[in-house]
């Protein structure tokens, strides 16, 4: 039986993200925590959720987590698989995605994200992979959920590069740029759940995971963290949630560890 008391912060993050998803959602899924969260949601409370990976696979139901955005199982279990231009034109730009997931190398308090470079763009200290789908995921999905592990290196006062636009300088900055979608509405970390303030759009801690203190949240965050007046404790993983996640990861481990080319 699952030991409910020893869940990890990562597990809590994934499960908290899964809970934020519903049966009617159409999710643009990235690899890693978002993929785990979406599939836990599908295997628990949201069996009819639609998962889309940018490789063109629409309505997939993988039995194990994909290692890449275009694993064969995503196609095999999909309702349909379309070309990548169609994916970005009809499905993402067409406004059909309710929730897009983004991760971040650097994140600021307004949900702006950098995954491009550390340092100057033209003379980078570290050349990161870049945006991929992120710039348009950030503007075309109805809402954006961000998942990341808290660290002062990642949650910074000022990001080095605007890979994707969150709430900019806050307030109605999105509207001023003619962006009609809501942008980041949820930040789920290994320590807490954050939501943008309705007015300023600054991320505010609305719930801390069990055992997490305000100090811990602040120590791992590079900006001065704001806490909601009605701060809650995130309900710990249920047995179903934790078992589902762990079994999914065990199946994934087994499936991907096995085969190797000559």
């Amino acid at each position, binding site marked *: 039986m699952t030991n409910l008391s020893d869940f990890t912060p990562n597990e809590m993050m994934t499960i908290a993200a899964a809970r934020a998803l519903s049966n009617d959602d159409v999710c643009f899924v990235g690899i890693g925590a978002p993929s785990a969260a979406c599939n836990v949601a599908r295997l628990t409370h949201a069996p009819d959720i639609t998962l889309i990976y940018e490789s063109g696979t629409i309505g997939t139901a993988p039995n194990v987590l*994909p290692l890449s955005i*275009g694993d064969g199982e995503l196609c095999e279990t999909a309702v349909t698989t379309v070309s990548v*231009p169609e994916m970005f034109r009809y499905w993402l730009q067409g406004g059909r995605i309710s929730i897009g997931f983004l991760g971040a190398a650097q994140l600021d308090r307004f949900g702006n994200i950098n995954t491009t470079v550390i340092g100057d763009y033209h003379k980078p200290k570290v050349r990161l992979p870049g945006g991929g789908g992120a710039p348009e995921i950030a503007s075309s999905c109805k809402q954006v959920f961000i998942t990341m592990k808290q660290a002062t290196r990642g949650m910074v006062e000022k990001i080095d590069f*605007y*890979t994707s636009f969150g709430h900019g300088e806050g307030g109605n900055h999105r509207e001023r740029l003619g962006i009609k979608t809501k942008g980041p509405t949820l930040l789920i970390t290994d320590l807490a759940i954050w939501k943008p303030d309705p007015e300023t759009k600054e991320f505010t801690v609305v719930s801390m995971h069990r055992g997490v203190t305000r100090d811990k949240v602040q120590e791992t965050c590079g900006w001065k963290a704001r806490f909601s007046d009605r701060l809650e404790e995130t309900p710990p993983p249920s047995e179903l949630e934790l078992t589902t996640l762990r079994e999914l990861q065990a199946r994934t481990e087994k499936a991907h560890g096995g085969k190797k080319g000559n």
Partner: protein
Amino acid sequence: MAKFQSLKEAVAENLRDGDVVAFEGFTHLIPHAAAHEAIRQGRKDLTLIRMTPDIVYDQMIGMGLAKKVIFSYAGNPGVGLLRRMRDAIENSWPRGIETEEHSHASMANAYEAGAAGLPCAVFRGYRGAGLKEVNPNIRSVTCPFTGEELAAVPAHRPDVAFVHAQKANRRGDVLVEGIIGVQKEAVLAAKRSVVTVEEIVEDFDDLHPNLCILPHWTVTSIVHVPGGAHPSYTHGYYDRDNAAYLEWDKISADRDLFSAWIKENVLEVGPEAFAGRVKGL
């Protein structure tokens, strides 16, 4: 009109020093065998286009074939960074490379526009994003009906496109299935195209009418290379070699290890090695 050739001939005839070239395949069907042949033939000063440069371009960049890379995500999918590409960008080893960076949406639209014979792609993109400040090839047009400002980027029109596919028939028609990516667009956008295939069959008689097929008169050269996508995969033939992607992270971390790997696995072997690599996958 598609010619059936050896990989050596196909690369020699179609890829020239200084060419703008796309090796495409979105996770699936990445034409590794063709890229290795380009490395063996020592092409120079290439402009490499690819949404996800991936380890296939990491190898070409590491061997100094590229002068420029046009891309949207420079990672080893599911693993991490591209260490040879970083070494070229950060330390100019083995040579400096120029980069032109886009988003996936932009790259996909640019291929689409290339296939459609247009000079540029028009889409809703880059709102508030930093790339449009650093990439002069991201511009805009204004919708003449609503006044909305839309992003515009030049269409991709490579000199040559390389793709890998499941099969060709004797006439030279090519079938691509599963995750089809941007391959059809890359081939139609390019002046010349080389397709490596797992299998050559007599004909395609019983295919569903709406599959992704490149008619023979849109393809320049067809090469039979079983396993030619390894360590990527071919739907219906073999799975992705995830271990090889993980291993690449170590090999590519060290210049000497990298050079030794290329010598052993690329320079001293030919395309026939690929069939063996996918056994058991």
